[in-house]
């Protein structure tokens, strides 16, 4: 059954359905509904929701809960995610599966609360200190947001890495019909023999990101990067729309992806052969499919609510085989389909 649901609330409900039983967060617009939803609904399923004293505390509470073997979520918006970065680096180092939702707003600094995509670098290139990556999933509809939250818990557990949902204020605040996936039965959540459950009948478990011996630590990180390579091989997700005969492919993610879908439809109506390539996993970035596409598409127009961040990954993927112009907006301004279509028309003619 479809229900009309706000993006933030759909993501929160999806987390509960994914078996998330602890949530730690701190108020920041435009994602407060996640914290509020969890406060209202987690206790009913035997879970715990704590409004933490800071983002720093919240992410470290997640660290504890994940170490205890329980599925756990935190959410915030850009400035709050910056504060969480210390903890996120520790999660990556200690191999803890935590799902982090970033409902992006415009920055840098306090910026404003309007939708933006300026945290792409932070999300996909590490963000915190050290050699690590996050699985980064970018939903473009409320439906997809719910589904990707559930997937994020699954992937985080499977690979023992933190995973991030990179949404924005538009997606968090909008309501859209959504068909919520059914709850995951507890027995389908994989056991975690490494978790801190009390050293009963087994040697003690230690959750740590600490190793003073460079050679031993190198081996640990090599193991981590083996996992990352496996993720890069097996978990790349993207969507192509009308790319078959396209003379220009728009590359956009998240809410810009859905707006660009409208652009494609309008362009096609005008006889312009335009397609859309929408990365769903921002890390791992779908470089290979984009590279394949670049063998026959002459122009890739990247559209972002930023000064051009994903654009760098697009250019690395296309690697000079096609033109790679950029169109972006800053400060929380969202371009209209008309504006993007006008940009498209600089490169293709009907």
């Amino acid at each position, binding site marked *: 059954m*479809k229900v*009309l649901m706000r993006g933030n609330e759909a993501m929160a409900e999806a987390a509960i359905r994914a078996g998330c039983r602890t949530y730690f967060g701190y108020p920041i*617009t*435009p994602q407060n509904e996640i914290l509020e939803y969890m406060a209202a609904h987690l206790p009913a399923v035997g879970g715990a929701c704590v409004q933490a004293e800071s983002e720093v505390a919240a992410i470290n509470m997640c660290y504890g809960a994940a170490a205890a073997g329980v599925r756990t979520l935190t959410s915030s918006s850009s400035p709050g995610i910056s504060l969480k970065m210390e903890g996120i680096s520790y999660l990556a180092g200690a191999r803890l599966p935590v799902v982090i939702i970033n409902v992006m707003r415009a920055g840098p600094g306090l910026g404003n*609360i309007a939708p933006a995509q300026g945290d792409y670098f932070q999300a996909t290139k590490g963000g915190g200190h050290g050699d690590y990556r996050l699985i980064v999933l970018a939903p473009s*509809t409320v439906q997809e947001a719910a589904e990707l939250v559930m997937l994020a818990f699954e992937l985080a557990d499977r690979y023992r890495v933190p995973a991030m949902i990179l949404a924005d*204020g*538009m997606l968090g*605040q*909008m*309501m*859209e*019909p959504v068909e919520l996936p059914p709850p995951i039965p507890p027995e389908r959540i994989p056991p975690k023999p490494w978790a801190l459950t009390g050293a009963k009948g087994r040697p003690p478990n230690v959750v740590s990101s600490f190793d003073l011996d460079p050679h031993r630590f190198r081996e640990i990180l090599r193991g981590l990067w083996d996992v990352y390579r496996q993720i890069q091989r097996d978990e790349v997700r993207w969507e192509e729309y009308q790319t078959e005969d396209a003379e220009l492919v728009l590359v956009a993610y998240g*809410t810009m992806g*859905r*707006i*660009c*879908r*409208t*652009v494609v*439809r309008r362009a096609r109506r005008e006889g312009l052969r335009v397609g859309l390539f929408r990365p769903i996993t921002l890390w791992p970035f779908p470089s290979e499919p984009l590279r394949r596409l670049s063998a026959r598409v002459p122009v890739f127009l990247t559209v972002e609510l930023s000064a051009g961040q994903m654009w760098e990954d697009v250019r690395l993927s296309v690697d000079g085989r096609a033109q790679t112009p950029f169109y972006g907006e800053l400060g929380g301004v*969202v371009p*209209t*389909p*008309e504006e993007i279509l006008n940009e498209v028309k600089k490169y293709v003619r009907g």
Partner: protein
Amino acid sequence: MEIGVVFAGFGGQGILLAGKVLAQAAMERGFEVTWLPSYGPEMRGGTANCTVVIADEPVGSPIVDRPQILVAMNGPSLERFGPRVAPGGTIIFNASLVSAPFARADVRLLPIPMNAIAQELGEVRAANMVALGAVVKVLGLFPLEAVAEALSKELGARGRERLLEVNRQALLRGFSLA
């Protein structure tokens, strides 16, 4: 087909609710739909607005620069959003609160004394439903009953069934005036 409707007014006028009920009704009638509120630092007493997009294919942007329909429940909203309404569109404005008529030749201007009607019905907070009734008529996509059903769901969910009847009346009045 993709129609953008903007509801705008003071915080507390039921702007977000009116939009949500419209979106709910459209969804129940099989349309693609999005609802996007203005979200800002002000909680009460400021301005509020929301955008509903109703379409027959997946909605691209939930933000609408040129809405086909504007509901302006106060003067500032009319001034702010009135110029943005697409040519050929409709501006439904609250004649109870807006004294200076908004002049635009390329749109249909629909003055409705929303507060006066609601007060007459004994529930001044139902002014938003008067407006919504008018929107449904202008849209012409589904019967008023669809909105009444959605509203009863919404009010039921909020434990305010007693308000249902007066709100139905308000919807009817708005619908008949449009």
